[in-house]
């Protein structure tokens, strides 16, 4: 638990912090990326001194998520200053801003709780740009006297930003490059692991190895291949991209079934091949649709429209595929 003993005391309580990221920090980041103790990667909210700041030093605001805090302090090479950590319940800046926990109220409260007025002589706070969905800059000014300055999206751009206090258009844009997408795979993989194992075991005993492998491949295509291939899959929306990818990975299973068992009757073989083409693509497409929540650019209206358009198709295809499997096993 986070102790917040300086809450009721108006004396400035400033903790020291340093720039280097230790091995322990890196281990903590690793665990966070694998979804271990998801909400437990926290920094105590409050005011931190980096280097030997004076009353004129800049104040940077961040979330009490270790990855956010560590990205900020490690980026401030040669810059002394104060870091004010808001209580966002262990959630990063952008998501916490969306929820409102990285917000106007918490910011104003934290300014008072840390007695920031007595620590610095100026009245400027540098916030990450992605804190803006939760913070009304003019409200903060009115309620606390502090002017909110929105810095760059990425902490790594801060040293460059601080030279002029003007962000370049590039600094103001979120990205979603291959590296950003790769980092997300591990957490989604952890989420699907148990359902994937259950599906694989059930299908192995019900239909055999090929069906079991098909399910595993369709799921892995959705959570591993899809994030990697996102910009290169044709079409624009996530579901149809997912259907295309799911169709591609289902095709070999359908072909092996169709051609690999010459003794069986033709309609039984066609039916068995069809089960792969019906049941697997919607699984990949559904996981692809769920990836919208991890991206940096999908809107709520767009995702809603996609759900209404494609989820019924996914459900019908998947349902028909399952019914076909059962029928074929009975006749």
């Amino acid at each position, binding site marked *: 638990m986070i102790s917040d003993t300086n809450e009721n005391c108006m004396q400035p309580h400033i903790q020291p912090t340093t720039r280097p990221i230790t091995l322990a920090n890196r281990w903590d980041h690793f665990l*966070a*990326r694998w979804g271990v103790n*998801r909400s437990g990667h926290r920094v105590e909210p409050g005011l931190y001194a980096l280097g030997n700041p004076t009353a004129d030093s800049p104040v940077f605001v961040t979330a009490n998520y270790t*990855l*956010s805090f560590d*990205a*900020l302090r490690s980026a401030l090479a040669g810059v002394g200053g104060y870091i004010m950590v808001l209580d966002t319940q262990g959630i990063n*800046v*952008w*998501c916490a*801003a*969306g*929820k409102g926990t990285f917000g106007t109220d918490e910011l104003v409260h934290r300014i008072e709780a840390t007695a920031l007025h007595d620590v610095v002589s100026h009245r400027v706070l540098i916030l990450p*740009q*992605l804190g*803006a*969905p*939760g*913070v009304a800059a*003019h409200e903060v000014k009115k309620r606390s006297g502090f002017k909110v300055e*929105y*810095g*760059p*999206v*990425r*902490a790594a751009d801060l040293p460059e930003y601080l030279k002029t206090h003007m962000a370049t*258009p590039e600094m*103001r*844009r*979120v990205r979603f490059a291959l590296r*950003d997408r790769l*980092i*997300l795979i591990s*957490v*989604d993989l952890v*989420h699907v692991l148990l359902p994937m194992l259950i599906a694989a075991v059930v299908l192995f005993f019900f239909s055999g190895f090929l069906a079991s492998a098909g399910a595993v491949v369709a799921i892995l295509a959705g959570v591993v291949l899809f994030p990697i291939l996102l910009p290169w899959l044709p079409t*624009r*929306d*996530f579901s*149809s991209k997912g259907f295309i990818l799911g169709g591609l990975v289902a095709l070999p299973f359908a072909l092996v079934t169709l051609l690999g068992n010459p003794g069986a009757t033709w309609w039984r073989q066609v039916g068995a091949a069809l089960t792969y083409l019906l049941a697997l693509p919607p699984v990949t497409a559904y996981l692809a*649709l*769920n*990836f*919208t*929540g*991890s*991206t*940096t*650019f*999908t*809107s*709520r*209206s*767009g*995702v*809603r*429209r*996609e*759900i209404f358009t494609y*989820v019924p198709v996914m459900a019908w295809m998947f349902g028909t595929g399952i019914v076909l499997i059962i029928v074929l096993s009975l006749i």
Partner: protein
Amino acid sequence: MFNISVFNTLQYDPELCIGCEMCSLVCPHAVFAMNGRVAQPVRPEACMECGACQLNCLTDAITVESGVGCAAAMIYAALTGKKEPTCDTGIESSCFSSE
């Protein structure tokens, strides 16, 4: 085929704009740019409805139904009949790489 970002709820009244530039600073997709003393939506189709511009607009010139574009949260809400949650699981990872 529709573009996922074409359909959004962003609305803007340039008559109310006082040219403070806030919207052009906070938008992570460069939807707004300054055209002289007035902000202009130059990439409205890129809006992801995060709500940053609306919240930081002094004159309420911008409105948008802000929310999180996360299918898992919306499907969960639809199935359980509960109020749409903000993404507690997947979306957190989306801004790992940022500050």
